[in-house]
């Protein structure tokens, strides 16, 4: 009896996507370690009060995508997609810089000052993104638009809005409280890592410690069935898109603080694809119905590790895209229904043979 349960457990572990995501990440890290043994070394820099090292860097740099992927994960769990997040990153940064610098003609030199207090800057940027997220949510939940096309609207228009906000200018700032968002540190770790951890924790508590996560998954499995069984499917979908917009706003603030500037054309370029990729690697299904927080975080880390790997070892940076394409192709083919059914059939056959042996 004891042995059987143990065996079942290992089977469950090897079947879970999180397991394979961790294996993939460890494999990439192992390759890094073999090529460069000091890859894992972490040093402490007393002047900034921060730890330094490639691993810390991976955590730090992955935070923008991880935060967005948290929202994307919930959206995908309701069988939706949010393509607008990359543009919202640009809007959030543009609004923040606009509020801090206000007018380049009036105040031409950047310095350690801001027209607007930091809390207002943050509130306005996040508020704007929340608003745009609820616009997406409205289109999807009320008007029953297809999520891809509903969020395509803001994806196209968002960068235009960002440029209208800044008048097409690129502004820089030296405002130290704002710089702290991406360059500061807390508990020896870079601020973005702390913010990301906080976001993950909040998402975990609000979805897995309450019934909200279950509601989201149930809407993703069958919207009308969950409505009939008493869930307010519309409100749930609306909330999910609002969360996604809000998190894109946070990510935008981190990004613009990292480059202490705004960049309406390039900020968040392609983030929607990376975030979707992270969710899919982490075991999310584009058809909706389930999400896996740890898996999504691993997915985002894998993407960042690949990029770090490519930069760190001087592999042609151009190869990133091909790498990504190959990894997604392998992951989605393994996840695809016919292949999974084939694998399942094999394991079921093995199990039935074992069962038959037991009956004898």
């Amino acid at each position: 009896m004891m042995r059987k349960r143990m065996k079942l457990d290992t089977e469950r572990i090897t079947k879970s996507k999180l397991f394979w995501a961790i294996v993939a990440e460890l494999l990439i890290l192992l390759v890094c370690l073999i090529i460069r043994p000091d890859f894992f070394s972490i040093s402490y820099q007393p002047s900034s009060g921060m730890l330094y090292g490639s691993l810390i860097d991976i955590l730090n740099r992955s935070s923008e995508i991880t935060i967005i992927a948290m929202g994307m994960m919930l959206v995908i769990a309701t069988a939706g997609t949010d393509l607008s997040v990359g543009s919202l990153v640009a809007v959030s940064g543009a609004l923040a810089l606009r509020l801090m610098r206000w007018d380049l003609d009036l105040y031409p030199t950047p310095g350690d000052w801001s027209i607007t207090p930091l809390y207002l800057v943050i509130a306005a940027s996040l508020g704007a993104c929340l608003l745009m997220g609820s616009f997406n949510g409205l289109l999807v939940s009320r008007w029953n638009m297809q999520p891809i096309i509903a969020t395509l609207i803001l994806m196209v228009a968002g960068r235009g809005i960002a440029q209208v906000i800044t008048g097409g200018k690129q502004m820089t700032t030296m405002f130290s409280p704002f710089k702290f968002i991406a360059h500061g540190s807390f508990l020896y770790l870079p601020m973005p890592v702390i913010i990301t951890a906080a976001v993950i924790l909040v998402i975990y508590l609000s979805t897995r410690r309450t019934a909200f996560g279950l509601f989201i998954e149930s809407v993703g499995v069958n919207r009308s069935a969950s409505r009939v069984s008493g869930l307010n499917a519309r409100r749930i979908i609306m909330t999910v898109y609002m969360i996604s917009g809000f998190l894109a706003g946070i990510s935008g603030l981190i990004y613009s603080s990292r480059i202490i500037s705004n960049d309406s054309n390039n900020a968040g370029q392609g983030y929607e694809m990376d975030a979707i990729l992270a969710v899919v690697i982490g075991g999310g299904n584009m058809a909706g119905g389930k999400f896996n927080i740890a898996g999504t975080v691993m997915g985002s880390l894998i993407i960042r590790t690949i990029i770090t790997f490519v930069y760190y070892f001087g592999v042609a940076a151009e190869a990133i895209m091909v790498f990504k394409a190959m990894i997604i192709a392998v992951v989605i083919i393994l996840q695809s229904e016919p292949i999974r059914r084939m694998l399942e059939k094999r394991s079921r056959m093995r199990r039935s043979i074992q069962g038959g042996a037991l009956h004898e």
Partner: protein
Amino acid sequence: MSKPARTRNTLLNRLMNPKFIMVYATIVVFLLIYTIGALLYGDKGFTTLRTFLNLFIDNAYVGISAVGMTMVIITGGIDLSVGAVASLTGMFIAYGNTILGIDPFICIAFSILIGVALGLAMGAMIQYLKVPAFIATLTGMFFARGVCALISRESIAINHAAFNELAKWRIKIPDVKPLAYVNFNVLLFIVMILIGAYMLQATRFGRNVYAIGGNEQSASLMGLPVNRTKVLVYGFNGLCSVLAGVAYALYVKSGWNLSLQGAELDVISSAVIGGTLLTGGVGYMFGTLFGVLLKSVIPALITFNGTLLSWWAKIGTGVLLLLFIGIQRIVVSASARKKL
């Protein structure tokens, strides 16, 4: 009973068929915006034939790609790889000709081979492995962009006598001032639209495409070749993307790995504005033609205005998309109510 059935078949009644509403909406909005432009900037030359034909010349590559995209969307799918494949075509031509010294037309043939193969591969992934079209074509996009960057990261100019000749070739429209003309890209665009319309409206293949988009399960139960048709549609779209890449290469006479970034959105929104339903089953090439024109008339208006900055075009496109999806929702829900 048979009499009213026959009177219904007149040309007017056939044109009034509600399934064309979306196409009419596109045409009406296009005419509306064009008239506004004519009223505001008529004295600056907005109404000239040259401005009108420039809409075609500047957007032929979007239109060529939109032909394939329309077909993909009618089957209920989507293809995000079109911009990357078109860019890859440009790279093949530029690198093949300028660096390797291969005849550009051989490069084009090679691109067609690769583009169609990639399209078929994505189609097979979607159809046989049941991978969502969005993810499968996203992979294709990453792959094509990656190969682009592996070939070269610099912009390469194309300098080939016959290729330049083709790029310069144009039919002048007689007796019009200022000079107006149609070039090879515009002809290719129009020919592709006609081919697409013929395939959709007059062939068995086109019937199958609509049937699959309407309801894939029913189509397969009816014994239609669902798998083959869907894979072929993605292959055809690959061909369209390559031709769009050729048109773009003729237009800018160079290849660059980052060119046409986000072009897939232009193409998808042109098809959607042209009345193609993303849920599949509904769409016409004629609508797509006007979708491309409507999408391109906004930047033209902004250029004529002169004081508005170019990013308003993006916002304008977003508003247009919203408007048309809104109209689609109303039309679809109205016809659904009628059926009940």
